[in-house]
């Protein structure tokens, strides 16, 4: 049974090899650490879901896998890296395979490493594409986090917001509806891992699905980051 899910973004500035004298976003970092530590503490088996690097020019592990390693308080029991451009069906079936065959009484925790669109502002890595606002709003809602000012290209508050109240259950069907082609155009790196999550949620069948317990949503650099813990 999927007992808890942590969702974190993977800006490489979270990695120690890119640490300068000051942390670009300590609030984001602490939110991520809090989310993954909380999930790790609640479960028997911890599995990381991440995507491959779209623009790969190195031979090392993917950024997503390395960020997960950096954030997690202990080694994950498994790391599932999905090709960033995997089809919806391939993602779904990869997600199913993560839960099928697991004992029902085993408390499974998922750490999903997924970034939203990198085209949210003119200064964003992929420049401004207003369609990203709609797409980000859709997946942010689908994971159960709150969306603010999603109709505005202006950056959201750099510190993000915390919402300790219970949110909505995750909506795997809405995640599966994300369009890979549009995602690619919008530099939406987290589409594939989110659809793996959707496959796992559907195969798990928990009703209601894990529900956002607390979340942090922001785009301080024009890239949508969602940090979330769902139970």
């Amino acid at each position: 049974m999927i007992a808890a899910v942590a969702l974190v973004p993977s800006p490489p500035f979270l990695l120690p090899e890119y640490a300068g004298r000051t942390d670009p976003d300590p609030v984001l970092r602490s939110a991520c650490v809090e989310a993954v530590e909380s999930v790790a503490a609640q479960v028997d088996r911890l599995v990381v879901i991440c995507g491959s690097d779209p623009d790969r020019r190195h031979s090392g592990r993917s950024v997503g896998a390395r960020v997960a390693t950096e954030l997690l308080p202990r080694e994950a029991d498994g790391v599932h890296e999905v090709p960033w451009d995997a089809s919806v069906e391939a993602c779904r079936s990869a997600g199913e395979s993560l839960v099928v065959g697991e004992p029902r009484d085993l408390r499974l925790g998922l750490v999903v490493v997924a970034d939203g669109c990198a085209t949210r502002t003119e200064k964003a890595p992929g420049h401004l594409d207003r369609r990203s606002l709609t797409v980000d709003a859709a997946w942010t809602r689908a994971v159960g986090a709150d969306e603010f000012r999603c109709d505005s290209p202006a950056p959201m508050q750099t510190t993000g917001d915390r919402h300790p109240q219970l949110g909505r259950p995750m909506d795997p069907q809405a995640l599966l509806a994300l369009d890979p082609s549009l995602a690619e155009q919008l530099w939406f790196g987290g589409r594939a891992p989110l659809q793996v999550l959707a496959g796992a949620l559907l195969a798990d069948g928990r009703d209601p699905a894990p529900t956002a317990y607390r979340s942090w949503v922001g785009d301080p650099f024009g890239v949508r980051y969602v940090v979330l813990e769902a139970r």
Partner: protein
Amino acid sequence: MRFRLRRKEYAAHDRLVMAIVNRTTDSFYDKGATWEDEPAYARVRQAVAQGADLVDIGGIKAAPGEEVTVGEELRRVVPFVEGLRAEFRDLTISVDTYRAEVADAVLTAGADVVNDAWGGVDPEVPAVVAAHGAALVLTHTGGQRVRTRPHRVEYDDVVASVIESLTWQAERALAAGVEKERIVIDPAHDFGKNTWHSVECTRRLDELVALGWPVLVSLSNKDFVGESLGRDVGGRLPGTLATTAISAWQGAHIYRVHEVRETRDVLDMVSVIAGDLLPLRTTRGLM
């Protein structure tokens, strides 16, 4: 190699900014701007805020001019050192003087470094510095008399002369009891040197660094920069900063300067490129 100033210990890759604070009416660059107490204190506060690691207080301008007696020099610098020590508990305070009597008074007042800018002309200075457990900056002037300009000076090899003089002075300082880690050497650009000499000292600065003592360079807005570029005093900052970067890349440690913020940036940039300092904050391509 490690060196010590006040209570702080520094490593070979540290690059320190020494802010010039002249208590003179007629120094070539500031022309008396910090002659009065209030602007002098303001200058130190600003320098510290801009990242200066130490200040260098001078009561006599280097160039020829009105004679400044011991009594007048003491009057200019001692109360200021006392006042700075009271306000800045941790600031390293250097005083630019060639006189042992003044050195003794300023070290008693709370200074930490004697910048003996005229080549160790007063042989009592090292013993005074040793008695206070202070640091001593040794300089090369090629035997130039105090407060005179070089006139038709030639060397077989200026860097060899610098090394010979500074090595001899370092041995004298050690013999007088100055701590090994509190001896600093300075080739003293423009002192007993024409522009060709100062440029060569910069080009071959690594030979001084290789001696193993911390190296101080005093480049700020000097004539060798002006003559290299055809710039008056007010237009020498780019040339000064270029020389600063070259010196830093070759491993100099202390930079005696008028412009603190700009020098701090140049030194930090060199340190980042050298891998001695992390960038401040990196997000480009990493968001």
